[in-house]
C-alpha cells in the first residue's frame, strides 16, 4: 500500500478524512476492541500530557516537551508494533510510551529530573529517550545492522522531528540503512516547527518522505492526524523490515499544537490563526467521529475512559513525587561498570563536603 502513494507526486496516505469517514479500500479493518483501546490510549496520552504541562507550571516538573496534537500518530504507530519490535525514541513520544505500556510514573519521574525516570522496565523493548536531535537514528540503524548480523527478525521503529532531517546524522543514518538494508522504520514527525524554525526553512524538498528515494528505499507521507493512516503505514513498514525487506521512511504530516517546550513561547514566531486552524483537525476528535459512525463510541464510554485516565495519571504523579531524590552514590554508580579508585575518592570527598546534604 505504501508504494501506492508516491511522495514525489505529492500523494499522501489518508484513511480517515477530517469528518472521520474512512476510505473503505484503506481501512485496516481493526476489531472494535482494538479500536476502542486505541482511542483509550489517545485520551490517556492527552490527559497525561496536560497534567505534565500543568505540573511544570506549578513548579512540580521540569521543562517539558508536550505531545499535544501528536496523539494520533504516536498511538497509531505503537499500535502497529508487535512484541519483538523495538522502539528508539526522541523526546516527544508520550503516546508511544503509553501504548507500549511504559509506566507513567517513570515517565513523569524523568521529566521531574530524576535519573530513575530512565530506568526502562526490562520487559519493554525501548531504547533511551534521546535529546540531541537526530543522533538516535544512528543507534537504531546500528541495532538494525546487529539484528541482520545476528539473523534475528527484529523490526526497529525510530522517531524524530522535521528539524532532524537537516542534521548530518539523519543523512548518515538513512544512507547506512539503505546500504546495509537494515530492518528500520524511520517515523519522521513533521509537525512544521523545529522550535521557531518552520518546515520550509529546513529543506527545499517538497516532502520529507521523498528523501528516502535518494537513499534507495521507500518513503511515504501520511496524514499524521489520522491514527489509522499511521497505523496502516507503520504496520506495513514494520512487517517489511521484519521479513528482510529493508528500511522505510514515513513522514507523518501534522502540527505541533504546543510550544516547543514549556520554556518556549510560540506566539513570538507563529500566528494564532494557524494554530486555531490545526486545533480543528484534532486527531482524537477525528477518530471519535469514526468510532461513533461505527457504533463503537458512546457518552458513557467517553465518561468512563476519561475518569479512568484522570485516576491513572493522578496515581502516577503521586507515586513519582513519592520517589526520594537520588543519593550521591546513585549519581556516581553508572559512570563506569565499577567505580575507579579516583572516582571513589571523589565520591567520598563529596560526602565529606556535604554536597547536596552529603547523602
Amino acid at each position, binding site marked *: 500500500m505504501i508504494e501506492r502513494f508516491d511522495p514525489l507526486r505529492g500523494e499522501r496516505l489518508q484513511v480517515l478524512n477530517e469528518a472521520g469517514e474512512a476510505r473503505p479500500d484503506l481501512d485496516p479493518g481493526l476489531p472494535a476492541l482494538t479500536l476502542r483501546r486505541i482511542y483509550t490510549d489517545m485520551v490517556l496520552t492527552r490527559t497525561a500530557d496536560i497534567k505534565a504541562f500543568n505540573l511544570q507550571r506549578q513548579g512540580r516538573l521540569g521543562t517539558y516537551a508536550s505531545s499535544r496534537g501528536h496523539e494520533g500518530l504516536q498511538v497509531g504507530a505503537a499500535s502497529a508494533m508487535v512484541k519483538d519490535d523495538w522502539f528508539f525514541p526522541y523526546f516527544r513520544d508520550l503516546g508511544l510510551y503509553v501504548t507500549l505500556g511504559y509506566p507513567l510514573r517513570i515517565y513523569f519521574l524523568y521529566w521531574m529530573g530524576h535519573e530513575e525516570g530512565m530506568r526502562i522496565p526490562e520487559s519493554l523493548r525501548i531504547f533511551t529517550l534521546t535529546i540531541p536531535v537526530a543522533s538516535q537514528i544512528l543507534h537504531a540503524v546500528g541495532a538494525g545492522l546487529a539484528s541482520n548480523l545476528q539473523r534475528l527478525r527484529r523490526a526497529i521503529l525510530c522517531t524524530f522531528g522535521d528539524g532532524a532531517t537537516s542534521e548530518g546524522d539523519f543523512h548518515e543514518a538513512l544512507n547506512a540503512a539503505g546500504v546495509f538494508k537494515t530492518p528500520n522504520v524511520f517515523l519522521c514527525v513533521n509537525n512544521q516547527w523545529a522550535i521557531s524554525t518552520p518546515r520550509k526553512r529546513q529543506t527545499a524538498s517538497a516532502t520529507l518522505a521523498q528523501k528516502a528515494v535518494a537513499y534507495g528505499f521507500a518513503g511515504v507521507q501520511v496524514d499524521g492526524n489520522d491514527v489509522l493512516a499511521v497505523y496502516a503505514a507503520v504496520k506495513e513498514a514494520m512487517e517489511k523490515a521484519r521479513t528482510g525487506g529493508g528500511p522505510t521512511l514515513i513522514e507523518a504530516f501534522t502540527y505541533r499544537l504546543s510550544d516547543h517546550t514549556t520554556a518556549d513561547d510560540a506566539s513570538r514566531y507563529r500566528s494564532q490563526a494557524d494554530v486555531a486552524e490545526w486545533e480543528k483537525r484534532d486527531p482524537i476528535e477525528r477518530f471519535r467521529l469514526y468510532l461513533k459512525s461505527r457504533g463503537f463510541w458512546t457518552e458513557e464510554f467517553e465518561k468512563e475512559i476519561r475518569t479512568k485516565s484522570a485516576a491513572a495519571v493522578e496515581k502516577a504523579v503521586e507515586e513519582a513525587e513519592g520517589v526520594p531524590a537520588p543519593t550521591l552514590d546513585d549519581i556516581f554508580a*553508572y559512570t563506569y561498570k565499577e567505580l575507579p579508585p579516583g572516582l571513589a575518592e571523589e565520591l567520598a570527598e563529596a560526602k565529606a563536603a556535604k554536597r547536596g546534604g552529603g547523602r
Partner: protein
Amino acid sequence: MTMTMVQAINQALAKELERDPRVVILGEDVGLNGGVFRATEGLFDKFGPERVIDMPLAESAVVGLSLGMAAFGLRPVAEIQFMGFFYPALNQVISHVARIRNRSRGRYTAPLTIRTPYGAGVRALEHHSESTEALFCQIPGLTVVVPSTPYDAKGLLLASIRSDDPVIFLEPTRLYRAEKQEVPESDYIVPLRQANVVREGSDVTVIAWGAMMDVLKRTAEIAQSAGTSLELIDVRTLCPLDRETILTSVRKTGRAVIVHEAPRTCGLGAELAALIAEHALLNLEAPVLRVTGLDITVPLAKSEEKYTPQPDQVMQAVERVLRF
C-alpha cells in the same frame, strides 16, 4: 615472535575475532583494503564481510552504529582513520557512548572500542598529526588508552575490547613501525588503568605516554651519561588515571617532569601537575615542569620537529628541576 606495533594490533584483532563471536570490526577501508595503515590486513579474508565491515565514509555513523550494535549485544571495534577526522563523531562519543550506561541506569552499555591513529612524526598532511587526547579525558565514562610498545599494544587492545566500558584506543602513528619487539603468540592482557614504571630511577620522575615514551627513553640515556637517574612512567591509561603509581614515584624522587605532544594549555599535563600538587606537594624538591607541544596549530611537515618535544628539551627541564 618479534613484530611491529601495527602487527601486534593486527594480531590482537585477529585473536579476538577468533575468540569472541560478538566482536565485529567496522570503519572506513578496514575490509578489502585492510586499513590505511594495514592494521586490519587479512582480517576481511579470514573472517568475512559480516565481521569486518567496510562502512560508508561517515565518522558519526561509524560510532553511532557501533553504539547501537553494542547495545544489541555485539562488541564493535570501530576504526576512525585518523584522529583529525574523529571530530564529526565527537557528538556520538560525548552525548551517547560515554553516558548511555548512566542514562539507562545500566540497562544499555557501550562495550565498544574506538581505535584511531594519532600524533605527529610521520610527515603527513594537515589534520593527520594532532594529539587531542585531553578532549576525551574530560568526558566521564570514557577510558582513554595509549600504548607505547608492540607488547603493550596487543595486551592493552585485548583488555580494551573485553572491557564493559567504552575505550578510546589511541595508536601513536609514529610508533606503528618504529621498532620490533618480542610479542607472545598467546592470549594475554595488559590491565587497563595501570601505569607502567618502564625504568626505575632516583632523581627525577618523568611522565609521558605513547610516542613520547621513545623521547623519554632517549633522554634517560643522555641523563645517565651525565650521572642523573630518571624514573620513567608510561601512563598507558590516561583516564581514569592510575594515581598511585604516579604519586608513589614522585614521593620517592621529589621531582617531576611531564612530557606530552599535545598543546600545553589544558593538556593532560595540567591534570597530572595538579594531582601531584594536591597529593605530594610536601614531597617536592622543585616545581613540576611540563614539556609539551605548543599552543599553536600543529605545523606542517617541514616544521614538525619545532613542535614536538625532543630529548634536548626534556633534558633541559630535568636539569632545571635538579638545579632548583
